[in-house]
């Protein structure tokens, strides 16, 4: 009867804990009491409560923890990426649209070069574009700040959970000797490990004394017996805004390498921080740098409305290419070895970079390492977006930027993060405020002499080099009917001697002289002349406005120099933004699919555990009836025994 009462109590406990997280269904193990040996054989002496066991499978529990850990990683990455996606909106809210609008605004300047309002519209559009780039950069910064905060909180949670597991380990070890399993403590420890796994994936190894060791990334011990090792959140050596996770052991603090933590929300956050955010920054930085570079270059080729009119001043300024030395680089006397005090009295890194061709910049950061196995003066440069490495030295030009390494040279194993584009959008601003400053006029204009007998007409005239000297008046005279010509360049200010030469018109190629390119329609005949002279009335000319407008289709984003002189064309702004948008979109999509999938797997694993350990109320109800009936039967037996005893007493009376 007592045994049945115990069973009833356990069932009651199960029912009460039906909704307790991590609770494993318990059941009473009943055993036949040792039978009494008599002359006529063994008589059963009833039932004993052997122990209370929990329905538990180590394998299923571990499987559930692991899958939940991966699901948490995917979910964390997916939700952060969804935030990142808002930096790349589609349609009219997007950067691509703003850039197109900006270029398109030049059409009104082209239609009416002297119209101040059309010029003002262009300036506003440039300002708007700059603001959108800054906004995008701020958004990425705020995502980064959020991730850093989450990582710090996660480290605190990990430490509190490991402390708790260590504590439970001690308590479990203490009761190990009793021979009964401390079901509730075990449940609590399993729950703590499952919670920990959701933050960072861990592996567990059981010990003979009932304790478990908890390891991070398969090797780093977090809990061993009753001892827990605390993790710390460290600042990234290149960028203090980023957080790395590390550990302090034996007085030294070290950060875990990238990818050390494979699961849990922390892994998802780190992956977004270390890869996705940097890539996004690179993508918008590349577009911003290329736009600013091309726009300013074209603007500089034109003439503004100033008195006197001169080459256009820059329209956009982007954040400079920068170098971040690792905070772990060799130090001497409290300052990094590879640094010096420049002319302004500021200590700067020996390694610096300068953008030489904005159209060849790639959307990536680079890592420069002073590898001691390489000859002095040679360094290994790795492009972080695709991991390609190459050897560089002072003055090397890579992907549109030049690496300058001044004395003192970096010490062995020094590391530098080179950021040609990723700082560009942080401080992008419009630098021109005066509508008159827009250089709508071309520096030179071409005219065809009326007496020409051929059909040649000017198809286009473009200033292509900043070295153009508008004071040189070029006269091109065709000497025969097959396109050969002679030319003279006369300096109208008489500062330079007249230059003469000859050339010939080749189909499909422009006539290039004095920094301009002239293309003709039609056929010139012998004696026909053309002149290219300084623009007489910059206020009424729209040559450069047309050239600025034409930048909307120019493929100036992401050119690549294949070999010296051979440049693979890039893409235009629209395509650059569209592919950036698609690249981020694909990431978000695949992260979200991965999150859905791993959540489904984790759900299945959780169901499997629940099937084994969870409480089914119908089952408990049935058991309740079963034990109740047994109890009633046992009670009935007492009644029978009592009546037997009573009968005996009656006999004796």
């Amino acid at each position: 009867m007592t045994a049945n009462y115990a069973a009833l109590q356990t069932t009651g406990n199960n029912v009460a804990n039906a909704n307790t997280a991590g609770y494993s269904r318990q059941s009473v193990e009943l055993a036949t009491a040792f039978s009494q040996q008599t002359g006529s054989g063994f008589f059963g002496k009833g039932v004993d409560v052997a122990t209370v066991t929990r329905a538990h499978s180590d394998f299923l529990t571990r499987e559930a923890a692991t899958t939940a850990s991966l699901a948490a990683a995917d979910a964390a990455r997916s939700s952060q990426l969804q935030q990142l996606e808002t930096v790349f909106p589609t349609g009219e809210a997007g950067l691509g649209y703003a850039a197109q609008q900006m270029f398109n605004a030049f059409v009104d300047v082209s239609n009416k070069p002297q119209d101040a309002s059309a010029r003002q519209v262009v300036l506003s559009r440039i300002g708007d574009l700059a603001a959108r780039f800054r906004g995008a950069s701020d958004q990425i910064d705020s995502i980064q700040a959020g991730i850093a905060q989450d990582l710090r909180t996660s480290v605190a949670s990990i430490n509190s959970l490991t402390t708790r597991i260590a504590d439970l380990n001690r308590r479990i070890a203490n009761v190990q000797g009793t021979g009964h399993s401390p079901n509730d403590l075990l449940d609590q420890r399993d729950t703590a490990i499952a919670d920990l796994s959701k933050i960072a994936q861990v592996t567990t190894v059981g010990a003979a004394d009932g304790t478990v060791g908890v390891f991070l990334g398969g090797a780093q011990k977090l809990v061993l017996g009753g001892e827990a090792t605390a993790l710390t959140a460290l600042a990234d050596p290149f960028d203090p805004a980023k957080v790395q996770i590390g550990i302090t052991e034996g007085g030294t603090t070290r950060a875990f390498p990238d990818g050390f933590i494979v699961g849990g929300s922390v892994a998802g956050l780190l992956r977004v921080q270390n890869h996705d955010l940097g890539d996004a920054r690179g993508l918008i930085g590349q577009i911003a740098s290329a736009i600013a570079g091309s726009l300013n270059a074209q603007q500089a080729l034109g003439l503004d409305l100033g008195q006197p009119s001169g080459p256009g001043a820059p329209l956009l300024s982007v954040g400079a290419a920068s170098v971040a030395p690792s905070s772990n680089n060799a130090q001497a006397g409290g300052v990094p070895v590879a640094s010096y005090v420049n002319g302004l009295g500021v200590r700067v890194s020996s390694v610096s970079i300068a953008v030489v061709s904005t159209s060849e910049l790639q959307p990536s950061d680079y890592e420069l390492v002073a590898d001691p196995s390489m000859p002095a003066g040679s360094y290994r440069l790795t492009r972080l977006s695709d991991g390609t490495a190459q050897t560089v030295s002072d003055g090397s030009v890579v992907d549109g930027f030049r690496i300058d390494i001044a004395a003192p040279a970096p010490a062995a194993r020094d590391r530098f993060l080179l950021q040609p584009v990723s700082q560009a959008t942080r401080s992008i601003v419009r630098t021109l405020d005066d509508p008159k400053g827009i250089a709508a006029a071309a520096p030179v204009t071409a005219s065809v002499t009326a007496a020409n007998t051929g059909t040649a007409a000017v198809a286009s005239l473009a200033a292509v080099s900043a070295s153009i000297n508008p004071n040189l008046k070029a006269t091109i005279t065709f000497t025969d009917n097959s396109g050969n010509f002679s030319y003279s360049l006369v300096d109208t200010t008489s500062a330079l001697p007249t230059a003469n030469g000859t050339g010939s018109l080749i189909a499909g190629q422009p006539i290039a002289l004095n920094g301009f390119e002239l293309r003709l329609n039609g056929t010139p005949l012998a004696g026909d002349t053309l002149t290219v002279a300084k623009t007489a009335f910059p206020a009424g000319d729209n040559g450069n406005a047309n050239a600025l407008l034409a930048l909307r289709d120019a493929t100036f984003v992401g050119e690549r120099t294949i070999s010296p002189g051979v440049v693979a064309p890039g893409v235009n702004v629209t395509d650059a933004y569209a592919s950036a948008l698609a690249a981020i979109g694909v990431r978000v999509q695949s992260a979200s699919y991965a999150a859905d999938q791993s959540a489904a797997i984790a759900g299945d694993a959780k169901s499997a555990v629940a099937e084994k350990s969870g409480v089914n109320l119908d089952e408990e109800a049935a058991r309740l009836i079963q034990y109740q009936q047994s109890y009633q039967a046992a009670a009935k037996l007492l009644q029978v025994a009592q009546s037997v005893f009573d009968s005996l007493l009656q006999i004796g009376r």
Partner: protein
Amino acid sequence: MRISTANAFDNGIDILSRRQAEMTSLQDQLTTGKRISKASDDPAAAARAERARASIGRAETSQRAVEASKVMMTQAESNLGNADTLLQRARELLVSAGNASYGDSERASIANELQSLRQQLFAVANQSDGAGTYLFGGQGATQKPFIDTPTGVKYVAATGQTVTENGTGLSLTTDGELAWLQARTGNGVFVASAAPTVLNATIDSGSVTNPSALTGADYTLQFTVGSVTTYAVLKNGLPTAVTAAPYVSGQAIAVDGMTVAVSGTPATGDQFQIAPSTPTLGVFGVLDQAVAALKTPGRTSAQVAQANADGLRDVDAVLGHLQAARSATGQVLNRIDSETDRLDNQKLASDSERSNAEDVDMVHAISDFQNKQSGYDAALKSYAMVQRLSLFQYVNGG
């Protein structure tokens, strides 16, 4: 299989909330009409829509350039039309000035009227669009493109044309110098003129009989009156084989592929020049010259006739030249129309491309939505029914 009650509840709630999320997302699509609200909904289609949107923007921008060109070209066309009318009137006056019964005073009054026409034409040539751009301003002018100088009307703007952006390349201005000042002199190939000292003979404008025989040299017809009147032909001032050809009034004189006819009674020493035509004939120069001639008193009838004939010839030349400029403007207007059509089509195509890429197919979406709705309904009902079942109810009942 055992079912854990708590887990069953959890799963049920999970499934219900997932279904609800799916319905909300479909409802979003239905209300916004967009299948893609963010790139991850369909990255490739989002990029396609982005490109299509840029193409729409490009078409709209080009359309603005076309509009700007249309405004300018329409004005230029109508101004050239006005110029045409004014020059026609000038031509009529010149014809009437040839009336043999007119004396110097009549011719002077005709000259005055011509002068006023000339002023009107000058105003037409310097017309602006009302917003600071001169219709005939060429490649840019900050002041009126035509100015009067002691040596005649000069074009001070840059010659050539301002054109719209590269995609359309339509004219924004007309080359004033070309239209107004660069008609070909004479009959277009050569100029036959009488020396000022010729009193009683005239030369016609001549014609080309053999284009391949043209040399482009300057010729002089030199007359000598003896027993018969003869003429010599000088080429670039040097004697030629023709030294003493007999002269018959009105008979064609052939010189190196050209024929001219001299009429009247030339005197000894009278010279007529035949020079290659140059593109230097200006509307204002022609009128100025005609006015000056008409105002000159005491001319012989041959001089009057020669001046009138020259004036008519030149007015016809500049008139033809202005009409050519006008038809060139008309061509641009034609191109503007076809360009507008092209841009409309491009915009429409890009818009449907964008719509295909990112807009929701309503029929499909509504049917999907109803499908999900009934699914959700069924899920709710079955959840409610299953969760009502519990053995405890029967135990309590019993």
